């Protein structure tokens, strides 16, 4: 039993917390605190997002006319290459794991920090160096025009800054491996006493599955990029037919990493959604173990389907057939998750605030993204659709509609925790609405164009496609404004928002048992282990105006349990 004074000390808004316990730039640049590293990562990926987003708007503006002269062909090619490379390697891969994951993961375990705080900081510095190298390609004056896929032999022939860029991607790979390794060890060794695997929030299962991919697949990318650099500088004869190499081999290596990488992008997003859906319907997540195992299944099966990016590459027909078959098996666990989320909503107490709106848009958009994967996994249709705008639309639906949406939802969910201040929910929802509608307007028309035969990576196109491209351009600006509004709402809240209690949403996972913002050591007391989806374990405290664990609450005021403790 604790008295009101202790309660106030544990859960009230603290004077000193991790954001202000030390001051000066050095206290950030040399920090080993996972929360500060998480915030620095967040700032980093946000910059990357804005930069690559501006490239995207330039591309879309160019495409507003079918014979546009705004950019030269060469400039157009450089623009889409940098857009893709920065978005993929510097933004979306680190976004949820490295920024949100860093903030939340140790706290969900009731731990003080990750297992290797120095490695964590190193990962962030590698991110800076890697992103710097990518951008050096622009500053080198020659640009980069290979597409984010660096396909040989064009990447060997071109005299643009391929070496800078691939080296950048190589370094970013290590940054990603460090984060993955850290998370694996942390989840394995630093769980709270008694916190078994099946008491972990699903976000952790998904981060764990992601970390497995990061650690196993990323080295392949590293080696491939080094071989590409070697081929380019020394012509060792592996990827370039001129020197006896095989260009298709590069594609195999590249996709052996990059297909699993798409799961590095989506799995953490699915984890976020599992948390949001259950907290905001105040219901135990439906089919916990199915969701948990489907993450692992996706991670493992994801290693076996890379050839579906190469159905027209000239790989053998039998191989093609096998890859198509395995591709369909990956679709099942994704579908299972969606059904489970819906079942969680059933009979819940659904709060439609900003994070939940993002979670619901995720289901909508990821639904379209996943279903259009079926058109691409089937052989005859993929032959027609491959490398058209249909593919462009498909992967934006999963990466932007999926990952970016989940990232925003997750930020709105955990923002009050880490800044101790609440955002303006109405403006948050306006932002969400603009993101959602702008996104659909941008990418839905691209499915039509793709099916009608509009190839991707084209700087000019036939007039037939004009109306669709124009819709797409308008949508892109709406989307941009939506993201900007969300950004402003969040930043404003971090500094000026009204104070909020330790657990305003009645979430039950352990991070909500700290004060908001959390202490430097995360928890001043040792957190009480409870089931992350047992929301009844949290009760309202009117003095603090927030939810706290039953164990800490005033026994005279605690309402009886509405559901049994063990399920």
């Amino acid at each position: 039993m604790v008295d009101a004074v202790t309660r106030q000390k544990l859960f009230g808004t603290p004077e000193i917390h991790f954001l202000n316990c030390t001051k000066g730039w050095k206290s950030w640049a040399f920090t080993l605190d996972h929360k500060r590293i998480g915030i620095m990562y967040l700032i980093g990926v946000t910059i990357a997002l804005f930069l690559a987003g501006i490239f995207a708007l330039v591309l879309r503006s160019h495409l507003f006319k079918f014979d546009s002269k705004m950019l030269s062909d060469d400039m157009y090619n450089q623009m889409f290459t940098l857009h893709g490379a920065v978005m993929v390697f510097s933004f979306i891969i680190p976004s949820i794991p490295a920024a949100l994951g860093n903030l939340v993961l140790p706290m969900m375990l009731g731990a003080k920090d990750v297992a290797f705080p120095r490695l964590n900081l190193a990962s962030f510095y590698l991110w800076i160096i890697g992103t710097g190298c990518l951008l050096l390609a622009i500053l080198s004056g020659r640009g980069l025009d290979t597409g984010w896929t660096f396909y040989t032999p064009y990447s060997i022939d071109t005299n643009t800054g391929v070496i800078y860029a691939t080296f950048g991607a190589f370094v970013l790979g290590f940054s990603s491996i460090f984060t993955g390794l850290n998370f694996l060890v942390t989840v394995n060794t630093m769980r709270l006493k008694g916190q078994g695997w099946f008491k972990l929030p699903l976000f952790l299962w998904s981060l764990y599955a992601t970390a497995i991919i990061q650690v196993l697949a990323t080295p392949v990318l590293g080696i491939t990029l080094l071989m590409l650099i070697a081929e380019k500088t020394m012509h060792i004869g592996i990827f370039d037919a001129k020197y006896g190499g095989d260009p298709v081999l590069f594609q195999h290596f590249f996709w052996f990493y990059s297909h699993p990488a798409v799961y590095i992008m989506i799995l953490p997003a699915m984890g976020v959604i599992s948390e949001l859906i259950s907290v905001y319907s105040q219901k135990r997540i439906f089919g916990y173990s199915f969701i948990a195992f489907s993450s692992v299944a996706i991670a493992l099966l994801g290693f076996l389907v890379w050839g579906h990016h190469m159905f027209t590459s000239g790989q053998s027909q039998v191989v093609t057939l096998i890859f198509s078959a395995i591709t369909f098996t990956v679709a099942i666990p994704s579908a299972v998750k969606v059904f489970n989320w819906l079942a969680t909503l059933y009979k819940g107490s659904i709060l439609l605030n900003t994070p939940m709106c993002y979670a619901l848009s995720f289901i909508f958009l990821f639904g379209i993204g996943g279903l259009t994967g079926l058109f691409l996994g089937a052989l005859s249709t993929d032959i027609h659709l491959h490398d058209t705008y249909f593919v462009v639309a498909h992967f934006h639906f999963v990466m932007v509609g999926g990952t970016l949406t989940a990232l925003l939802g997750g930020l709105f969910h955990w923002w009050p925790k880490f800044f101790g201040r609440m955002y303006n929910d109405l403006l948050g929802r306006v932002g969400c609405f603009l993101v959602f509608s702008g996104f659909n307007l941008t990418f839905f028309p691209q499915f039509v164009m793709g099916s009608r035969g509009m190839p991707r990576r084209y700087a000019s196109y036939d007039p037939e496609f004009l109306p669709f491209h124009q819709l797409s351009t308008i949508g892109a600006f709406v989307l941009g404004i939506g993201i900007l509004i969300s950004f402003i709402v969040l930043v404003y809240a971090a500094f000026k928002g009204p104070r909020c209690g330790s657990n305003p949403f009645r979430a039950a996972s352990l991070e909500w048992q700290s004060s908001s913002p959390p202490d430097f050591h995360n928890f001043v007391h040792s957190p009480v282990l409870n089931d992350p989806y047992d929301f009844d374990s949290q009760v309202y405290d009117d003095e603090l105006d927030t939810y706290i664990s039953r164990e800490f609450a005033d026994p005279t005021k605690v309402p009886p349990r509405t559901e049994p403790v063990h399920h």
Partner: protein
Amino acid sequence: MNWQIPLMLAQSTDNLEELRKRTAAISLDGTTVPDSALVRDGTSNPFSTEYWFPTQASSFAAEVDFLYMAVFWISLVFFVAIVGVMIYFCIKYRRKGDVIAPQPSPSHNTAIEILWSVLPSILLVWIFYVGAESYFDMRIPREDAEEIHVTAKQFAWIFTYPDGDQTAELHLVRDRPAKLILQSEDVLHSFFVPAFRQKMDVVPGRYTYAYVNPTQSGQYRLSCNEYCGTGHSKMKTMCEVHDTVDDRKNNTKWIKADHQPWENGKRTYQIQCSGCHKVNGEKATGPALNLIWGIDEKLMTGQTVKVDEQYILDSIWEPAKDVVDGFGPVTKMNSFKGILNQNDVNDIIAYLKKLKEESPAQ
């Protein structure tokens, strides 16, 4: 501004004149956009095949469209169900005021979970199966297909017909199947004709194949679909399907060849190869090559390979790769890479085919 409304509708034919004018403006900088690309017998009904696809101009186009529309309907049903249920729950179970009152309901149900994993799987197996079946129709050429060599280079296409004549656009004949033998002079490209639903990458250093049996005459867009450098988006030409062989012969701008390919091949062969390879069936330093085309060759390793374009190319550029049984362990043939290019090899292949055809055994 050419802002056509309603936008989600298929391009209507009303403003065709206007479109032609604009297209003509593009052709000035060297690009051809065939008229038929502008006309969509399309419809504004997004639930129809015509909305999503250009004309069906090949034997398998209808199959592709069928699967596409089937997946489209399956997806639509699932999507509407998912989003419908989601919206329904969000309205029905919406939190009223500050009262958090979820109603008790089970948090797992193994039967349901297995059901909703297995039922969609059955559909997926079906989609896979239909996709694979049509895939083989798209990839396996009919025996009697005419062979046309397609050379892609930054940023143009060259088409070479069996008699050695060339064109800058692809000319086919209706109901006459064609096997396209693709080769690249520099980087990756991809051969794509949306109206045929056919696509195949063009890979430097090897041959790839695309097959098409055109079923409708007309002009169709042909574009490079694999990013290949600065002028990628200008690497467009057209494919014209003529009604008859004579139509094609008379209505095409041919770049005439001085000699048949096999004659060129014979010349090269006599200069470069005949020292080691006889054409009378007798073994010399190397095996005789007069009957080699199309057979299953036994290699030193015990494997057999089919003698096709790729095998001949490898034998000439990288003789050490596949050494013929009885001629190992180290080949005495030296590589002709850098001496003979892929077009020379094509000519030699034409000659080898000719030899095979003319051999008395045939």
